[in-house]
Every structure is written in C-alpha cells, then in structure tokens.
C-alpha cells in the first residue's frame, strides 16, 4: 500500500482536529470572541485553511517520503506556506524575511547539502515500518497532549494587535533589542567561520 493514502488520511484527520479545535475554542469564548477574533473576512478564513492544509500536508509528505529530494520539495511548500501564513497574520516584514531566509537561504542550503552529499540524490534509506509507526505514535501522543493543553489554555485576550510597521521593528532592533541584535552578528560570524572551516577542502 502506498504511503500516499496515509497522507490523505492523516491530512483529513488533522484538518478535522484543527477545525473542531479552533471552532469550539471560538464558540466557548463567545463572549471574548469579539476580542480574540479580529475582523476576519471570508477570504482570510479560506486562506488559512488552504495554507494549513498546504503546510501540514507538505510536512507529512516530508515525514513519509523516503527520497531526500522530495523532502526538499516538501520543505519548500511548508516554508512557503508558513511565509504566507505570516502575511495572513499581518506580519509582513517577517513573511518577507521568512521567504528570503528560509526559502531563499536555508532551503538552498539544504539542496546544496543534498547535492554535495549524495552520489545519487534519489538514494533511499529505508526505515523499518515498525519504527515509523512507533515514532509516529509517540509524536501523536505528544500532539494529543499539546493540543489538549493549548486548546484548554486561557489565553489573555488583549485584543487584535495592530500590524507592526517596519519602522518600529527597526527602532526596536536598535534600542530594546540591541544586545540580541549585536549578538546575532557574533553568532553568524562564528558560525560562518565554523561552517567555512568544515566545508573547506583541506590542502594536503
């Protein structure tokens, strides 16, 4: 039996979970619903579902496929979906960053890694089905717990936030978040040195 069917089954189930979980949460907090739900037009709802299915579906595809190239493709859709989700969350700058860094940077890095490390990119390493199932069950258990906790948790509902402007973000980076900002520079520098050193062809 092909894995594809599993994907569809799991996808359906997870969509149902999302749907029921999200909707009942909204219904329960109907009093606060006005606060917690920003004026979301039907377009936003549709976008969310499409993106959710895209993200989860491609993530599942990653989990179930054996080919590393397919994983990279799945990752593309997953990352892209998340970036679009950020736009949906009115985090436009972050969405762009997500696109640039993840899709443009990390994904390319992964693809490079795939190319560098395999004589044939389609080489598959089979994992025993039993193990796949066991680990899947553990993940499922974890999700059940997480979902339970997150679903029941009383979130503070200070109301929908206004979209953050890039100007504010920039100012934040140079004031409150100056230290992490500088530190990020150091991290990237050190990592660059390390990665360059490791990947460099040693002179013999």
């Amino acid at each position, binding site marked *: 039996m092909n894995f594809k069917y599993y994907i569809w089954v799991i996808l359906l189930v*997870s969509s149902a*979970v*999302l749907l029921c*979980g999200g909707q009942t*949460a*909204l219904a329960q907090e109907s009093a606060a619903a006005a606060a*917690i739900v920003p004026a*979301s037009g*039907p377009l*936003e709802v549709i976008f*969310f579902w499409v993106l*959710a299915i895209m*993200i989860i579906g491609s*993530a599942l595809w*990653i*989990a179930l496929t054996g080919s*590393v190239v397919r*994983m990279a493709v799945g990752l593309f859709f*997953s990352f892209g979906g*998340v970036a679009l*989700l950020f736009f949906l969350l*009115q*985090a436009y*700058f*972050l969405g762009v960053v997500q696109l640039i*860094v*993840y899709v443009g*940077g990390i994904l390319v890095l*992964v693809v490079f*890694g795939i190319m*560098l*490390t395999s004589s044939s990119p389609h080489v598959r390493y089979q*994992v025993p089905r039993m*193990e796949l199932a066991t*680990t*899947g069950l*553990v*993940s499922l258990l*974890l*999700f059940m717990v*997480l979902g339970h906790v*997150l*679903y029941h948790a009383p*979130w*503070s*509902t*200070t109301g929908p*936030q206004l979209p*953050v402007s890039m100007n504010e*973000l920039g100012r934040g*980076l140079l004031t409150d*978040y100056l230290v992490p900002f500088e530190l*990020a520079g150091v*991290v*990237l520098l050190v*990592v660059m040195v*390390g*990665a360059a050193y*490791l*990947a460099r062809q040693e002179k013999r």
Partner: protein
Amino acid sequence: MFTAIGLTHYLLLAAMLFCIGLWVMASKRNAIGVLIGVELILNASNINLLAFARYSTGGMNGHLIALFVIVLAAAEAAIAIAIVVNLYKNFMSVDVDKAATMKN
C-alpha cells in the same frame, strides 16, 4: 462555521508542525532529512510567536523574537549542513544509522 479563525487555530497548527517535525527527526535515516525536522520545529515556534503577536499579547516583541529565531535557524542550518558534508566525507554516506559506531 468557517466564519472565523482564532488564536487556537494557529496554535494547533503550530503544535502539529512541531510534532511532525519531531516525527521527521526520529524517522529519517538521511541526516539532511533529520535537519529538515529541526527546521519544521523552529517554524512551529515562529508561528506561535506571530500568532500571539497578532491575537494576544506582546505586540512588536513577538515579531522581533521571531526574527531572531529565524537568524538562529539559519545559523544552525549552516553549521549543520557543514557537519553533514563532513560526515559524508568521512563515511561516504549521510545515513545516520551508519554513524552509530559509538554506543552503550
């Protein structure tokens, strides 16, 4: 029924991504596949942060933290890929099961 999307939707989505990420990590023999799992988990926390920023508390802080998470994810990916390449040079394979000579 499809009329509104709330915080819980996003959180559950992120939790799902988190668990799938863990699943990917635990069920891939290809080292790069395992790294992809890490990236999925980090994406999950980003979704969390931005959802909070949008629907709940935090505001701008959430955006900035997410920005730093992305930076860290990039750094981690860079070093991890370099290490995978190094692994490949030594073992002529990226199978993490082969890289299990040290145990017990």
